[in-house]
């Protein structure tokens, strides 16, 4: 199933090989392998609960796999890797937080260091340049909590990119955006990836917004992965084998629709059976 997995090949920016993760008695990921070359734009596709966030956390060094390894530019992953920038899925930025977009981006430079940063012109200009690159200059001095979801995301991308990583990870950045913002973010990421020569790994539950920009796709289902180009992977036979039951893939006007047959996946954060008196809760944490 891993069509392109050749771990340890020289020149690979990211090499994930045989990663398996078991959490709370459930096997979230099983033997996942793929690589990312410098400058590649890769989509990590899967429905809710498929294990996308878990996989990203493993790559970031925040979660230890039960099996397998992750190499970043040939070196084992660590908790702090300046080569990787990260934009999380959920973030809570209160409306009256005393932090401008500019301040949040500045924190990206050296938040891990102790002490108070010394204000300097060089620092200021570096932040301004980054904000320009993501088209966030018009609201650079606004409160971070008063910006729209799409605007906040751009600021977070700037925060992640200001340390000049070689790989940018984004966890479901398109999830809560309207159609136009979705397209804007994808276009922005594509442009930034080309300009700054960085690889991008972006997770999503719908493959369509990424179709025009993806080089390859890593498709997650049932804890397993299928890796390759869209044409190679998003096919009825490959996905049916991955899901373990019949799946149809329809193509209409250049859009792809994956339709699960009966007995499809149920991945929800809350398992509360309707009418079940002794309902059980899957409480987070």
């Amino acid at each position, binding site marked *: 199933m891993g069509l392109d997995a050749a771990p340890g090949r020289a020149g690979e920016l990211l090499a994930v090989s045989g990663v398996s993760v078991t959490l709370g008695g459930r096997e979230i990921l099983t033997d996942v392998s793929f690589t990312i070359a410098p400058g590649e734009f890769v989509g990590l596709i899967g429905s809710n609960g498929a294990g996308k966030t878990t996989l990203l956390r493993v790559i970031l060094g925040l979660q230890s796999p039960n099996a397998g390894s992750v190499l970043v530019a040939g070196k084992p992953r660590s908790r702090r890797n300046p080569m990787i920038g990260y934009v999380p899925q959920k973030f809570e930025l*209160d409306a009256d937080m005393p932090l401008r977009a500019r301040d949040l981006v500045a924190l990206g430079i050296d938040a891990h260091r102790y002490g108070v940063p010394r204000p300097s012109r060089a620092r200021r200009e570096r932040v301004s340049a980054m904000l320009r690159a993501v088209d966030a200059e018009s609201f650079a001095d606004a409160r971070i909590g008063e910006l729209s979801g799409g605007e906040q995301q751009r600021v977070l991308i700037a925060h992640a990119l200001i340390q000049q990583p070689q790989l940018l990870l984004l966890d479901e950045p398109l999830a809560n955006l309207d159609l136009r913002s979705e397209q804007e973010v994808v276009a922005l990421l594509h442009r930034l990836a080309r300009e700054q020569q960085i690889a991008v790994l972006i997770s999503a539950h719908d493959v369509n917004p990424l179709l025009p920009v993806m080089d390859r796709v890593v498709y997650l289902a049932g804890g397993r992965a299928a890796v390759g180009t869209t044409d190679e992977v998003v096919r009825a036979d490959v996905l049916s084998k991955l899901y373990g039951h019949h799946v149809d893939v329809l193509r209409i006007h250049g859009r792809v629709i994956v339709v699960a047959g009966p007995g499809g996946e149920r991945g929800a954060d809350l398992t509360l059976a309707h009418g079940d008196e002794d*309902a059980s*809760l899957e*409480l987070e944490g």
Partner: protein
Amino acid sequence: MSGVLRAVVEPGFFSSGPVQVALAVSAAVALLTSTLGVFTVIRGQSFAGHSLADIGATGGSGAFLIGAGPLWGFMVISIAAAGAMQAVGVERQRGRDVATGVVLGASLGLAALFLYWDSTLHNSSGETYTILFGSMLAISPATVPAVLGLGAVALGVVAIIYRPLLLSSVNAELAAARGVPVRLVGAAYLLALAAAVALSCLAIGAILSTALLIGPAAAALQLTKRPWRAIVGASVIALAASWLGVLLSYDSYYWPPRGHSWPVSFFIVTLVFACYLAARLVGSRGRRR
């Protein structure tokens, strides 16, 4: 057998009037607050629960000032505070906790004032202690029917809204999508919480009512993820801790060095905390399996 019983239970325990009142009131308080506590912990509103109790102290001292019974002081102020919290209704938890803290601060400031006037006007300092730490072995028997009645009503409210409350506590968005009136259910919950807190303020004091609210529920939730089981577990822990606390406090009168019983609230809190630690130990061993 009777020898053992006599060793554990000091003479006159079961026949003592104040003890009987204490047992009845603590049973009602334990069942009500621990049940509500399960929802409070799930909803992440421990600070609100604690604040209602502290704010109750203001009500209690204010009531004492004007000569009214403390229960009504607690009730009125708790319900008013709950209403205020519902009205402010900041969505994000961080903002909500700050707002709660500010209201609590203002209310405690007032409590400072009332208590100062209490002590200067009525020239008694024991009231401070009573309001803050409770007087379980000195509750007037006349209040027992009111306590039991109020407790039953509050429990009834919880029983009625049980399923929608559970749904909206675990996942408010999902509940709203399924047609649950989330704000209404939240308001009903806060009212029931206010009643529970008022009652426990009376029994074990404003400050320590949080112990029965949060402790048993937190312990139970370490052991099970099923809400119904958590409620039963929390109630058992709360009841056991309360009754054992009353017993130990009664016994401690006879302990060296002096003829002075240790406060009931101390025993209950310590027992509840011990239960939590035990539950956590057992729970973690189960998780590691």
